[in-house]
């Protein structure tokens, strides 16, 4: 069982210039649970997710990881030091839509890099741990491949291994399967399900309603920068009250039936 983090998002606002991208977002992410963020494209899902590890800075409100504010010394105060931010980030894994593997390194080197530069492991030990992490995502026979020689699904599994090898207490996923050919989606979702079963706190931006319905403990719906609703998947996906969620799901089902 991993030690799992909680995330507390309070009254978070985010602007891109004049554009109000996140509006007073309040969201509790309990430890060891899977939270899915859904909503139309451009609704602010990525922005919210990226505020959690401060890849995107929020302008007001608080994001607390295990009760500890990320990004600022005090709410609305000075920026926290780079060193402290790095330390907080080192326990938060992130998986991107475009994988973002380093193209000049092999799969194993990609996974070992953080262990070496952040955890300070020696190369041999980092490579050993990387091999174990890749084995867990079923890629022990692909360790010496560069990303260009891997399928999308394999690349995304390497990216997950890269994050997991750091022993994170929280994992953030930004549409991890959206860039994949349909037949490769399953292998990535399976790895994510195994992580969830291991008790990892996960925040997942996704359009995979099946994953949200079956794996999520709670689903949050965003629309135009507002958090419209948070609930158990059965309730929010099957009997949504808000017309915006109804219309989103209707579009989704129409698209997927054809």
């Amino acid at each position, binding site marked *: 069982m991993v030690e799992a983090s909680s995330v507390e998002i309070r009254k978070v606002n985010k602007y891109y210039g004049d554009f109000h991208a996140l509006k007073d977002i309040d969201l509790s992410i309990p430890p060891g649970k899977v939270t899915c963020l859904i909503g139309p494209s451009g609704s602010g899902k990525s922005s919210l997710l990226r505020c959690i590890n401060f890849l995107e800075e929020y302008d007001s409100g608080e994001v607390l990881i295990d009760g500890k504010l990320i990004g600022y010394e005090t709410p609305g105060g000075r920026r926290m030091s780079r060193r402290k931010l790095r330390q907080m*980030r080192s326990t938060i894994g992130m998986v991107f839509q475009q994988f973002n593997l380093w193209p000049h390194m092999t799969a194993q080197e990609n996974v070992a890099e953080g262990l070496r530069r*952040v955890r300070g492991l020696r190369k041999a030990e980092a490579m050993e741990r990387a091999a174990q992490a890749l084995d867990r995502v079923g890629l022990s026979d692909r360790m010496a491949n560069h990303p*260009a020689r891997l399928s999308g699904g394999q690349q995304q599994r390497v990216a997950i291994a890269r994050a997991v090898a750091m022993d994170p207490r929280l994992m953030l996923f930004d549409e991890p399967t959206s860039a994949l050919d349909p037949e490769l989606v399953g292998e990535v979702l399976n790895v994510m399900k195994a992580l969830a079963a291991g008790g990892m706190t996960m925040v997942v931006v996704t359009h995979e309603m099946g994953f949200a319905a079956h794996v999520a403990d709670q689903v949050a719906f965003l629309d135009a920068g507002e958090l419209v609703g948070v609930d158990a998947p059965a309730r929010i996906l099957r009997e949504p009250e808000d017309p915006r969620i109804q219309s989103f799901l209707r579009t989704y089902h129409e698209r997927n039936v054809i």
Partner: protein
Amino acid sequence: MDVSIFAEYGPRLLSGFGLTILCWLLGTVLGAALGLLIAVAQRYGGRSVRWVLQTYIEVIRGTPFLVQLFLLYYGGPMIGLRLDPLPAGLLGLTIYGSPYFAEIFRSAFRAVPLGLIEAGRAIGMPELAIVRRILLPVGLVSALPALVNFSIILTKETVILSIITVPELMYQTQYMATMTFTYLEGYLALALFFWGFVEVISRLGRRLERRITRHLIERS
């Protein structure tokens, strides 16, 4: 023409040849190193740092190499900077090339997908490690053709150093031509030499490029 002239001046020409290669090599390596520093400082420096460096780039790019060289070699002593021809020439070449190299690196860095940098930040990598381990190696790949190209331009700038009496190949050829009236043969041979030299560099460049992009080619 008399081939024995080349034989008689052989040792001079040979040492000139060596010096030309040396000037080109050091000018390229030092200029690229300075350009790289400038590009990294521009990326991470504050407003004033960026302004100073941008001004430097514009001034050096906006003035002729020969003028820079004269300033350094003849003007330098007036402010206490007394350099022999060779060090002055090497310093001049380094300075002259640095803004072009800096621009090459700057645009190569800009071409590195932000996601690769963010992947490093997300696991808590220090910014310096991100530069060293991600930005540089990925950027270098896209910079390589332009780097080779500019180093080729530099081969031909080395002849300017003969004007401040650096005894490189141009200087020696000039000496031989003046002494023996072999203007046509001497300068023709010099032209051929540079052509061949450039050809070698560009071949080596292409080979290097193939090597470092090998693993970037997607499987079929």
